[in-house]
């Protein structure tokens, strides 16, 4: 009696394909979906920030009579020392943090994956050179490295992206290499070589697509840590210059009023936490969806 039912579910599963399978498992994970939802809302706010808010009037103009108002109905997150609404500034600031996180990870992804794939695929002296350089590079604590890079290039959003991106490269090199190593000696690669495909095409068409899972998970989790690192550098004054409401610089500005106006410190940090949490939730969900065997661990 059960046979036909089983057969149809099997067929349906087959039609969905591997990517569909992963997405299906992910969509069943409510916590990961919550993370994705928060990320989408933040992306929406970032993209349309200039439509939603008036940069001149709401973000940088000063309104002294309303300065340092505690959270109230009109200003749910209060106002800062220039009388600007904190909620609006924090929402506007989402675009800096998201852009910095995304671009930084993109930089790390491109360099890290290419170097890692070359090291893992070719092996031998090439691998040795790339991995030893990675080791040297990674042995400098990343925060110190990032501080030096930003000081060299000067404080700006773009340089912050570069600094955080460059310091995240070693992680991607190692992960990509490790996962390329697991497929390097498989027969289908030998087959591809046997029919004379060039190495570059083998790497991009046959090797990397089979190494994507750990890289995708790494991307999501790295965006989370990149946002935290970037806010830290901004807090040290090495980031987006004022009056841009980047979250780290909001915290740094709030620090001066910490004794009496704690909410200036509370809300920007809370926003960073929720954003990073969303990426972490999605990353954990993706890991479970991509590798169901690992689930329940």
């Amino acid at each position, binding site marked *: 009696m059960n046979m036909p039912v089983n057969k149809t579910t099997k067929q349906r599963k087959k039609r969905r394909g591997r990517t569909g399978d992963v997405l299906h498992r992910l969509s069943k994970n409510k916590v990961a979906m919550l993370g994705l939802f928060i990320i989408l809302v933040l992306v929406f706010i970032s993209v349309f920030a200039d439509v939603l808010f008036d940069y001149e009037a709401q973000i940088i103009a000063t309104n002294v009579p309303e300065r340092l108002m505690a959270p109230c109905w009109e200003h749910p997150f209060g106002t800062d020392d220039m009388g600007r609404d904190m909620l609006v500034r924090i929402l506007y600031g989402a675009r800096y943090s998201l852009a910095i996180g995304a671009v930084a990870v993109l930089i790390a992804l491109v360099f890290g994956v290419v170097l890692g794939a070359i090291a893992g695929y070719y092996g031998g002296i090439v691998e040795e050179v790339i991995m030893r350089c990675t080791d*040297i590079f990674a*042995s400098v*604590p*990343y925060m*110190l490295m990032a501080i030096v890079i930003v000081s060299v290039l000067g404080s700006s959003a773009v340089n912050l992206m570069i600094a955080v991106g460059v310091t995240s490269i070693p992680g991607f090199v190692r992960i990509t290499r490790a996962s390329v190593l697991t497929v390097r000696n498989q027969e289908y690669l030998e087959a591809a070589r046997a029919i004379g495909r060039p190495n570059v095409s083998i790497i991009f068409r046959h090797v990397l697509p089979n190494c994507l899972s750990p890289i995708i998970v790494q991307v999501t989790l790295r965006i*989370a840590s990149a946002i935290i690192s970037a806010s830290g550098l901004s807090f*040290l004054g090495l980031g987006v210059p004022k009056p841009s409401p980047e979250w780290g610089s909001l915290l740094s500005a709030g620090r001066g009023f910490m004794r009496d106006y704690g909410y200036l410190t509370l809300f920007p*940090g809370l926003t960073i936490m929720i954003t*990073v949490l969303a990426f972490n939730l999605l990353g954990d969900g993706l890991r479970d969806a991509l590798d169901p065997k690992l689930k329940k661990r």
Partner: protein
Amino acid sequence: MYQYALKRLAMIIPVILGVSLMIFIAMDLAPGTAVDYLAPEGATEEDLMMLEHQLGLDQPLLVRYANYMTDLVRGSLGTSYVSHRDVMATYLNALPNTLALAAASILVAIGISLPLGMISAVHNGSIRDNLAMVFALLGLSMPNFWVGLLLIIYLSNGLGWFPSGGFDDGLRSLILPAITAGTGFTATITRTTRSSMLDVLGQDYLRTARAKGVNERTVIRKHALKNALIPIITISGTQLGAMLGGSVLTETVFSWPGIGRLIVDSVNSRDTPMVTGSIVMTTIIVSLLLLAVDLLYAVVDPRLRARYASKGKG
């Protein structure tokens, strides 16, 4: 095993060369020099030239690097452009503060995360497990320095339990910085402990132990935890390394005079010898630490001891 350790120690030499060259070039490319920082207002062009000459900044980069390396081989990290003090002495003066901070935060982190991770794994899927995991995930998602700011606002300014900075108050002034620096660390170790314990809990030898009548408490504490330790040690080692370099934010929030502050201040004043020396020293310490962690595996796991030994022969 000794050969393995020696090989790893030898790796530190190219690391020193690479890192010092990297920092040297970076500091050279940075806009401005220590001269701009040191020059008094209204200094003439001639004064600037003289100052530049005094610091040796009028020489080409490679000559300066070669001089630096000659000094380094002799065991000297040079003198600061700004304070004119010995770099090594200044660094060693700040190091104990950072080490104390790192040690305290690790104590806090392990004290919370080991039991939490074990409870979580043993009661897998329970409310307690879920609560612990939410706690860990939140800890992982908070910028550490923000935790520090909140602690100052509520526990120090609000309730007045702890000083808000400096370290004149002995142990009491160490508590908030330790919690701050340890937040992410606590979260990471809790998660690692849980997943590592879950791996071990499914193993046959635990069933054997229970079957021969060992009580549950001993099974968990002796048989399971011991075998779950390796990933926990790995993560702890790398995190301790990250903490030595990453303590700069905690040190800034709590005006803690450690190496993080030292490096940021020296970068700002373009004090190349101080920056290079401090980063090279920190890198060496972190590398040694990671080596120590690797060797610690052998202590925990006799199987690895045997493998290192055979590698050493071959």
